[in-house]
C-alpha cells in the first residue's frame, strides 16, 4: 500500500462529497441544529404544558355540591380548581363538558361525624392525559383533606399525629464520587458517534462504491494501475472523515444544547439544577489519560461503522440496494445502547467486552466511572481492530469478485 495513492483516492471522494450540497446539509448541518432543537424543544414544550396545567383554573364537575363540607371545598380551591355542578358524572365526562367529576351522594360532614366514613367517586377518562392530570389534582386534594380529618381525630383521641409514622427512613448514596458524577447519560456520546457516523458516512460510502458501479466509473478506476487495497482504504478513510465530522457536529450541537438548557432552566430549578447537571454527565471529571482512552475508543467505533458501510456498499450492486442494506443498521446500534441500561442487572463478565459496539460503550462507561481494567481495554481495542480489518478484507474481496464488479 502506498499512502500517497490512498490519499489521492480519499481526496477525490472528499471533494466529491463536499460538492454535494444536499449531503453536506443533511450530514453536517442537521445534527448541529437538530440536537439543540430536540434538547431544548422537548422540555420547553412539555414544561410549558405542565406549567400551564398546574396554574390554570381547572373546571371540575360536582354531583351533589351541597354534600361537600366547606373545609374540603377550600382544599380543592387551593389546587386551582373551579367547581361546576353537573347532573351525572359519567355523561358529563363522556360529553366532554368537564374532564373530571367528583360525586358525593350523601352529606360528607354527616358521614364523617363520630369517626364514620364516607365515599367520594372520581370520574375521569383513564388513558387520557388531560383527564388524568386533572384527576390527580382532585386526588391530591382528597389526600390533604383526609390528613386534616385524621389529624383532628387523633387530637380528639389524645394522640400525637406522629404515632402514625413510627419509622423514619434515611437514604444514603454509597457510590463513589466518580460514579456519582459519571451520569446516567454518559452513553449518549458513544451512541451519537455510532449513529451519526452511520448517517454521515453513508453518502460517501455508497457514492464511492455502489455509485461508481451504477455510473460506470468503476471499471476505468480498476483499469488504472492503483492497487485495490489502496482504493478500498482511500474510500474507507473518506467515509470515516465524513462520519466523524457528522458525529462531531452532533456532539457540538449536544454541548450547545446543554449550555442553553442550563442557562434557561437551571436558574428556575435552583438546588435541583446541580443534581440534574450531574445526572446528564455535565459534572464529568476525567483526567488526561481518560480523555486519550475515550478519544481512541471513539475513533475505533467510528472506524468500525465506516468499515461496515464500505463493506456493505461494495457488496451491493446499486445505490438502492446499498441503501436498503444500510437502513436497518441504526437498529443494530440501538440494541447495545438499550442493553447498557441493564448492565447492572445482567452481571457482565469479560465475554461482554468482546461484543462489538457494546464493548466500546462498556469501556467508555468504565472510563467515566474511573474503573478501567487494562486487560479489558486491550480486549476491546484488540477485538475492534481485528473486526475492522476483517470488514476491510471483506470489502477488498468483493472488489476482486468478477460478479460483484460487473453486474451483467
Amino acid at each position, binding site marked *: 500500500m502506498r499512502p500517497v495513492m490512498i490519499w489521492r483516492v480519499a481526496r477525490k471522494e472528499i*471533494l466529491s462529497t463536499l*460538492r454535494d450540497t444536499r449531503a453536506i446539509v443533511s450530514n453536517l448541518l442537521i445534527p448541529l441544529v437538530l440536537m439543540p432543537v430536540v434538547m431544548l424543544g422537548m422540555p420547553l414544550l412539555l414544561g410549558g404544558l405542565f406549567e400551564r396545567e398546574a396554574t390554570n383554573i381547572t373546571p371540575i364537575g360536582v354531583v351533589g355540591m351541597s354534600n361537600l363540607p366547606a373545609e374540603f371545598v377550600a382544599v380543592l380551591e387551593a389546587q386551582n380548581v373551579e367547581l361546576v355542578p353537573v347532573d351525572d358524572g359519567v355523561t358529563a365526562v363522556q360529553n366532554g363538558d368537564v374532564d373530571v367529576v367528583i360525586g358525593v351522594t350523601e352529606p360528607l360532614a354527616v358521614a364523617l361525624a363520630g369517626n364514620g366514613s364516607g365515599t367520594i367517586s372520581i370520574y375521569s377518562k383513564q388513558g387520557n392525559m388531560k383527564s388524568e392530570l386533572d384527576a390527580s389534582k382532585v386526588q391530591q386534594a382528597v389526600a390533604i383533606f383526609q390528613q386534616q380529618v385524621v389529624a383532628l381525630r387523633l387530637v380528639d383521641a389524645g394522640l400525637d399525629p406522629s404515632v402514625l409514622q413510627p419509622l423514619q427512613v434515611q437514604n444514603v448514596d454509597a457510590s463513589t464520587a466518580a460514579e456519582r458524577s459519571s451520569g446516567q447519560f454518559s452513553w449518549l456520546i458513544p451512541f451519537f458517534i455510532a449513529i451519526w457516523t452511520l448517517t454521515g458516512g453513508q453518502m460517501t460510502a455508497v457514492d464511492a462504491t455502489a455509485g461508481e458501479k451504477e455510473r460506470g466509473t468503476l471499471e476505468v478506476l480498476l483499469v488504472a494501475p492503483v492497487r485495490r487495497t489502496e482504493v478500498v482504504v482511500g474510500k474507507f478513510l473518506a467515509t470515516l472523515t465524513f462520519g466523524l465530522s457528522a458525529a462531531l457536529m452532533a456532539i457540538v450541537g449536544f454541548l450547545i444544547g446543554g449550555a442553553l438548557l442550563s442557562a434557561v432552566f437551571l436558574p428556575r430549578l435552583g438546588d435541583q439544577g446541580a443534581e440534574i447537571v450531574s445526572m446528564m454527565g455535565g459534572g464529568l471529571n476525567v483526567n488526561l489519560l481518560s480523555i486519550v482512552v475515550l478519544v481512541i475508543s471513539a475513533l475505533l467505533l467510528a472506524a468500525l461503522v465506516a468499515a461496515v458501510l464500505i463493506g456493505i456498499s461494495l457488496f451491493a450492486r446499486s445505490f438502492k440496494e446499498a441503501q436498503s442494506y444500510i437502513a436497518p443498521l441504526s437498529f443494530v446500534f440501538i440494541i447495545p445502547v438499550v442493553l447498557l441500561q441493564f448492565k447492572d442487572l445482567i452481571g457482565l463478565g469479560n465475554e461482554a467486552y468482546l461484543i462489538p459496539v457494546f464493548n466500546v460503550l462498556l469501556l467508555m462507561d468504565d472510563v467515566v466511572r474511573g474503573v478501567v481494567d487494562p486487560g479489558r481495554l486491550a480486549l476491546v481495542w484488540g477485538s475492534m481492530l481485528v473486526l475492522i480489518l476483517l470488514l476491510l478484507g471483506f470489502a477488498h474481496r468483493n472488489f476482486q469478485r*468478477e460478479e460483484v464488479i460487473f453486474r451483467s
Partner: protein
Amino acid sequence: MSALIDVRNLSKSFGKVKAVDDVSFSVAAGEVYGLLGPNGAGKTTTLRVLATLLKPDSGGATVAGHDVLKAPEAVRASIGVVNGGMGLYDRLTGREILYYFGRLYDLEEQQIERRIAELDDLLDLRDTLTRRAGGFSTGMAQKIVIARAVLHDPPVIFFDEATSGLDVVARRAVVDFVRDYPSKGRAVVYSTHVMSEVEELCDRASIIYRGRKIAEDSVDELKRSNGSNSIEEAFFRLVSRVDMGHEEVR
C-alpha cells in the same frame, strides 16, 4: 514484426456459457486491429481479460510485453480503455477528473498539464475542462472519457463499443480521434458491431462469433475472399457458414 498484443488460445466461461472459446490474435505496433461481431459475441470479455479485469480459464496474453496474469499492474499501466457505457464523476470538472486519473497513473503535475493541452488540441475539449461532468452532453462526456484513457500516453488502447449510445456528431469525434491519433509505436484494438467503423479505421480485423474467431485478415482481403463488396456482406456470409456448420454438429 514486434507484437504489442499477443493473445494465445484464450478461453473464458461464465457458468455454462462459453463467452470466449480458444481465441488467438496478435496486434503489431502502429496497427489498428478490429474485433468485429454482434453483441454478446465475446469481444468485451476478451478485452476485459486483456485489461486484467477478468482472469481467463485457459490460455493467456501479453500486453506491451507484460503477462496479464503475472504482471497485471504493469499491464494496467500500459493500457487505456474506452467503452460506451463509461461514466464520469458528476460533481468534478473535466480537468479535475483528468487530474485524478493522472495522479493515479503517478504523473507529475506538469506532465498532466502538458497532456491536457495536447489532448485539448486533438479532441477540442474546451469548456468540458472547467464544467462539472454532471452537465455534460454524451459527446462532451465521451471526449473526457477518451482523454482520460490516453492521458498517460499508453502504448496500447482498447476501444470497446466506444460509439454506442452516442449521437452522430459524438460518434464522428470518436472515429476521427482513432483515425488521427498518432499511431506510431502504438497498438489499438477497436471492438465494435458497426461494420462501417471497421472499414474506415482498421488495418486488420477478426470476426468474432459465438465466442470464436471465425475469420481474420485485412479488411480488403476479408471482402475479397468472401466475394463481397462490403465488410457487412462478408460478415453475413461468414456467419451463415458457421451457423450451418453449427446445425450440422447438432
